[in-house]
């Protein structure tokens, strides 16, 4: 059973998320630099490369914000700032071990609602600057949302169905014996896909793709850019971390304490996602919408049906 954490956890949570995001981004940066310039010659060189994201944050922070003509500055700023806020709010129901900042009775719905704020965030950031490429980025995210959101919601509903509760703590408890990932693999797979899609990252990075010069982020600079792109990493970390209580048994595991299991499992999921990113090209919107509606949604429905039948006969 998940307990509510003490008040100070509210302050620890953002710090923890930031650290995990920086470590993940650092890992990603080492692999990226390795692909471009050959493998790092020494540990020192690898460490320098791993510090890239941190340096990048500092570099962006000293840049002055800029404006484009007839831009809607307020909208763009709100969009940029909303992304990390959405990630943080979604993380409130994330249990570390068996404790979350707030184990809401409808935690899964809360998570879904907060994560959907990203739709607004990316669209606003894309629309605000009044620039074609960033607008295309914004459009792309809406199309992507149409593709991933439905299978995604069905997938997390399936996990809730298996536990017969919307409370994240109870979903974890229901996996004391068998992880959900093992008996609802399709839902787990779909969840991982949509985790990347909602963070518009990896194979789903079209909304901020390099082919549109950064898409929704194309015109953001300075602190706005840090918030937006940092928020994207946070969202990825939170989405990946949420797969642990939903499908991977949360803090359950032998020998080690629950919190360590959570961290290890989250790390494993993130490492997997970082690896996947290297193996596949970006999935363009029109193809992903097709996949989402023709394959993933029916698959998710069948998965939910199977789980429902099992639960009813239990």
């Amino acid at each position: 059973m998940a307990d509510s954490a003490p008040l100070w956890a509210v302050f620890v949570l953002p710090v923890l998320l930031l650290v995990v995001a920086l470590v993940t981004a650092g890992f990603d940066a080492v692999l990226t630099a390795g692909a471009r310039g050959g493998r790092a010659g020494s540990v020192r060189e690898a460490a320098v490369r791993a510090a890239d994201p941190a340096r990048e944050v500092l570099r962006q922070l000293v840049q002055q914000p800029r404006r484009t003509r007839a831009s809607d500055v307020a909208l763009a700023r709100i969009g940029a700032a909303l992304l990390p806020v959405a990630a943080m709010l979604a993380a409130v129901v994330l249990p570390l071990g068996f404790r979350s900042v707030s184990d809401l009775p409808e935690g899964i719905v809360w998570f879904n609602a907060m994560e959907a704020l990203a739709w607004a965030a990316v669209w606003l950031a894309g629309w605000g600057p009044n620039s074609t490429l960033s607008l295309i980025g914004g459009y792309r995210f809406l199309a992507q949302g149409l593709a991933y959101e439905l299978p995604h919601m069905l997938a997390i509903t399936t996990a809730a169905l298996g536990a017969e509760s919307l409370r994240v703590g109870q979903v974890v408890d229901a996996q004391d014996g068998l992880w959900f990932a093992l008996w609802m693999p399709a839902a787990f797979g779909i969840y991982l896909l949509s985790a990347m899609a909602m963070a518009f990252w990896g194979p789903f990075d079209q909304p901020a793709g390099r082919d549109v010069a950064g898409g929704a982020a194309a015109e953001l600079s300075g602190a706005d850019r840090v918030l937006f792109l940092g928020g994207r990493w946070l969202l990825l970390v939170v989405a990946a971390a949420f797969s642990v209580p939903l499908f991977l048994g949360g803090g359950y595991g032998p020998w080690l304490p629950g919190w360590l299991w959570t961290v290890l499992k989250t790390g494993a999921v993130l490492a997997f996602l970082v690896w996947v990113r290297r193996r596949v090209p970006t999935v363009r919107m029109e193809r992903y919408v097709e996949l989402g509606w023709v394959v993933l949604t029916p698959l998710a429905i069948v998965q939910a049906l199977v789980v429902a039948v099992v639960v009813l006969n239990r």
Partner: protein
Amino acid sequence: MELRRRLLRTAVSRPGVLLAVSPGTTRERLAVEAELVRRGWPCVSAPAEADLLVVLGGHHAEESDGDAGSDWAANLWHAIPAPKARVPVRDAGQVAEALDRGLAELRRGEPPQEPHQEDDAHSHRGEHGEHGDHQHGDHGQHEQHGDHGDHGDHGHNDNSATHEGHEPGPHEGHNGHVDHDGEDRGHEGHNGGHSGDDANSGHDVHSGDDGHSGHHMHNGDDTHSGHHMPGNGDTHGGHDGHAGHDMHGAHGGHAGHDMGVVAGLPMADRADDRDGLRLDRLHVPLGPALADWPAGLILRVALQGDIVQQVSAEAEGSASPYPPFWDEPWLRALSGERVSHGEAARRLCAAHLDSLGRFFAVTGWTDMAARFRHVRDRALAGADAAELRGLLRPLIRRAERSRTLRWLTAGLGPLTAEHARHLGVTGPALVADGDVHARMRVWLGAAWRGADECDDTEALDTAQVIGPRGRVDGPVPASLALLDALPGLLEGAEFAGARIIVASLDPDLDELAHVPAVGMAHG
């Protein structure tokens, strides 16, 4: 204060570098890219994230500051938020020094640097007297433009002193500058804040014209660009002017027609979409400053949502006295020099690897793009065949076997051999006889063979002079045929698809920019 300075120094220790690449500077671009990797500096895709602008194009850099030719580069510069620095790279051998200079400039911090830069920019403006007059006069502009529209086809009869008046590009750019200067003197510290405005104040002016002169102007513009179609040796600076507002194609919507103007920018116009619905349509120039884009290519597209409706391709026409880098071995062999077969094979391999790097970058497979570029750098650095084969084998296998890639690229931009032959295409695009995936596979195969043969010391056989883009000794440059193929393939494609199609043909505008001796005096 000390802390602040140190923080700034650390922050810019690895500046984000934006490349402004003109046709004819492939050698310099490759050198810069390799050097950036060595230093671990990020190569960014938009001015918003850049600190350091590296302007490639040494040979015309002398007059470039005052010349309309680098107007788009100037606009790019103004769109970069402070702190920022700009360095020209004139020679592939001086890349390291140039970057060091840029870094030093960044580290000094912007306050002492900026006024100097601005003055510079301003003084050259003085040379084009006209601009001063039109600083804030949209109507003045309009008249000029109406002119231009009406006489759209008189093209470049005008000499270089007056042609500015007829060119949409330079006007925008320069107006942008002038505004900027004015503002800047007001509040020195806010360069970054305004630079964004700047890039767009160009559009402002442009749109003013559009709003008034309606379709004429656009037509005039088109006709005009028709004149500038590559291959006409006489591309004087004015042509570059087109690029002025192109930037990285971002600040769109400035070619709207009769829909009125909001905040100085035109509204989108309307047109029927493919389902017969009347929807907003934007006229946007793509290039020449997009990342992973053929240097100097400008596509004027009408976008509906992100569907490309109409396209016309043109080349940003700064003439280059140097032969196109990728065709060099064949050209030298044709001129009678002894060139080894291995050297040509190596160049061919590197050219295809460069194209593949772009192709994968645009398809969003950044990891593959990075790996192919790594091998390209190795090939150019003179790695032997065994090493290249070892590096390439896993990459080629992965690219060929990727089902995701096949699923994502299948059916995009089909170009049958018959149609390709009709267009005069002679290179890989003809051999491929298919969609972008087929073209990629031809590149993979050719790059592999090139890597295989790159230690061959026999003399190059001049009977068959097929370079990376096609016949080197043809009546027209091979890339011109590729340019001709573009509009037909792009119309109806989505933006992302369109970019992949462009990358899969990868026309090399160096071939068009190369103007042997005679044209030099002009450009």
